[in-house]
């Protein structure tokens, strides 16, 4: 069984924003589940990392929170992407793309020959 690793704080925000963009308003459990599934169950999202991250995003105005009722009629807090959040997502995604491309060049020796 592959070692499951905790999600990193920096990338968690990006994942949350992307999840909300893809799936629309969602509660904390749903977000955690979606991230774990998308990672192919390689990542574990714990309370202690997820909820502070959600709070931070809410404070910064990238997501908004509202109480609603879940599919199995449970009262749950739903998070939704705001306009500022969409912009932030685009920006972070672009930056992440650049970063990973740079890292990729360092890691793959084949490119170095040229």
């Amino acid at each position, binding site marked *: 069984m592959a070692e499951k690793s905790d999600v990193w704080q920096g990338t968690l925000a990006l994942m949350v924003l992307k999840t909300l963009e893809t799936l629309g308003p969602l*509660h*904390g459990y749903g977000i955690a589940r979606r991230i774990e599934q998308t990672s192919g169950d390689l990542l574990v999202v*714990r309370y*202690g990392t997820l909820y502070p991250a959600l*709070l*931070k995003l809410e404070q910064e*105005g990238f997501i908004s929170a509202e109480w609603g009722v*879940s599919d*199995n009629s449970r009262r749950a807090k739903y998070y939704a992407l705001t306009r500022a959040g969409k912009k932030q997502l685009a920006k972070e995604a672009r930056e992440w793309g650049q970063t990973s491309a740079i890292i990729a060049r360092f890691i793959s020796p084949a490119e170095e020959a040229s």
Partner: protein
Amino acid sequence: MNAIRAILYRLASLFDRRRRDRELAEELECHLQMEIEANLRSGMPPAEARRAALLKSGGVELAKEECRDRRGLPVLETTLRDLHHAWRFLSRGPVFALVAVLSLALGIGANTAIFTLLDQVVLRHLPVQHPGQLQMIWTTGPSLGSNQGSRASSYPMYQDFQQAPAFSYVFCRYLTPVSVSLASQTERVMGELVSGNYFQALGIAPALGRVFTPEEDDRVYKGHPVVVLSHPYWVERFGADPGVLGQKILVNNYPMVIVGVSAAGFSGIDAARSPQVRIPILMKPLMTAASDNLGDRRRQWVQIFARRKPGYTIESAQASLQPLLTGTLRAELESPALRETSKRNRDLFLARKILTESAANGYSSLPTSYSRALVALMCMAGVALLIACFNVASLLIARAAARQKELAMRLAVGASRGQLLRQLLMESAVLSTLGGALGLLLSVAMVRGLLHFLPANGMLTTLRAEPDWRIFAFNIALALVTALLFGLAPARQALKVDLWSTLKDAAGSVGGNRGSVTLRKSLVTAQVAFSFLLVSGALLFSRTLLNLKTTNSGFRDMDNLVTFQIDPARSGYSLTRLKDFYQRLLESLRSLPQVKSAGFAWVPLLSGREADWDVLVEGMPAEGRESQAWVNGLSPGYWRTMGVPMLEGRDFEDGDVNGRPKVAIVNRKFARDIFGNRSPIGLRIGLDTGRGAKADIEIVGLVEDSLYEGPRQGVRRQVFFPFPQMNQSVGAAFYIHTSTDSATMFATLRRNVAELDPTMPIYEMKMLADQLDETLGTERLTATLSAAFGILATLLAAVGLYGVMALTVARRTREIGLRMALGARQGALLWMVMREAFELYGAGLALGVPCAYLLGRYVSSQLFGVLPADLGTAVAALMALAMVTAGAAFVPARRASRIDPIRALHDE
């Protein structure tokens, strides 16, 4: 942007913390339930499902804690908590808190009060555009003519400086009192004659109408009968009526038109002597009937200011003026008036230097003396505050000793030293903030009191007691610095607790560990040193005041000398009419039964005003001697009225008028300086030293020395002329030697003047003794305040000393008891404690005496008749402090000598 938003969010969440906690708990619970449900769906048994869910998601409480930290403002929350603790701690010892807050309030209040004055007198810039570019210009050396007022230049010199490339504007001013008549009412106000570019140079706009411009108001000699009112004068006198524009008023009996009102808040270059009206300087001959000296290079009377262009410094701008001046001086020496000047005077004349000074704060004849005094007082107040700080520090150390156990316990259960330090400092901050707030209130009261203290001329009118934001900022900053000063050392000391021994020792030691005693002793040493500084300073200033007060003025019976001033020239009197008026007034005054004698003088005495001329002495070349003499014009009978004895020759007589031989009286200092031991009677002198000057005035009298401007300036080398022979239509100060009390006399004198001319304004009516007192305003302020600071400091130091000695005795109770049991005498024990106190006293003096010597030199210009390192003063301060030390140490020493050995040994 996001950061601000986040802070706001966090701030908001401080207020509904409970709701948010509940919601978070609900949200986490919901998460958990969903997890469990998912596990159940995948076929786990219920107990297993729950366990797996909990395991996977991590601790619920930990998550809550992290969210809470992120949600609120941890710094603010802990600060509030520290504040709460501090408040509880202080309210547990209300007496301690009260003493600490009060002594801080006195210290901070005194500092804030002095700063309020210092800020307004010394530090504040003029409320004009770019005040930093303003520069005042004047010259050194002899003018070979007359000087009026300080830092005066001639009007042509102002014109010369217009060519200076360093300045965008060069402007000039001349202050003179004027009579303003409006609807048959005449009043005296301060007038300022200004060059046409004055308002442009300062960047002052009109509040109404227009202000002067070089184009409109600086062209025609005597041709600009226009007036700009100051804003306060417009409001007070004209009820802020916009209809004043175009209104005609009489200024010195000359019809002029009001064309505008200057901007509100602008009080001029010299805030202490702010004019009510401004008049173009080309009107000078009409405003001062006595003299028309606009074009005369030998008459220096205007003050020149300039606005520097960017790129020049004060120094470079000053340097650029020097060639201009030297060139002009060289040309002047070729003029007919100076062609026959002596070699020595020519050299001195050519060596004249340009001097300049930043005028960002404006210029005042007063602040030069006030500012040094205020800086000295500010230092003294600062030292007094330090002493107060040390006392509070000492108290805090004592308190900390009493709560060693509490602190040790908290450290033991895991509080960090940083947390405790923060909390202890918070206690200091609360004390100093309370002290500062109370001090601010005190300072307003103190400044009000101080303003009553200053003489009622000039300064008083512009100084305000109400604090503005600068004062608030100073006060708050001072309170915070104070908190660190008295709080840090005790707090660090308190945290040096030895956990093991403190918690183990059930009884707890009295008064803390060894380190805290040493710290308190060094604080007391510093207090003694500072007290010595303040006490010796207070003594120096008090002796200065006393010396000035008791300086032999040369005048007799000043308590029965009434003086008042009139200026008929400003009411339009011609020279003949004015001379006649003075003569008739003198006769009518002398006819009053209460009047023993009366006389008048041109320059009022003891008012800081003076006139000095270069004089020529027959048969004595000007080479190698000072030619300057301080002059005055007098009526007959003046000397008898003032009680100054004639040593030789005669007084002026009614016959000393135009057409009769010109005569003069000289004082003893003049005779001694110029003629040595020879009798001056019959010798001849003349005015000015240039060409055409003749020694045509015969000295007919020699009079005893007396004061002129004031006691500080001392006796001048003086020459007096009969007023009628001076042919100047100027004001005069009358002196009346009376035999009744002044109050009834004032009314009688007013009636007397009114009988001759009911519209004649009378001003400055007072007793000569009071006039002398007024010249000593600065000195009295300094002496009184420094005495107050000295007493305050000494009392605080005494409290500090007492505290330390009481603590020492308490700590040594057992030792003392043992000594007693072994047969020590009471006297020896008394001495043992006293000796310890005097060791502190000695250490304090070792520090204080050299400091006092150095500081004394800084204020030496403020002193009079006493040296900065005066032995008597030092001894007096030593004695005073020795007595206070003995007093403060005696109570604990006595207690030590009365310790009951049985009980002392038993208690342990």
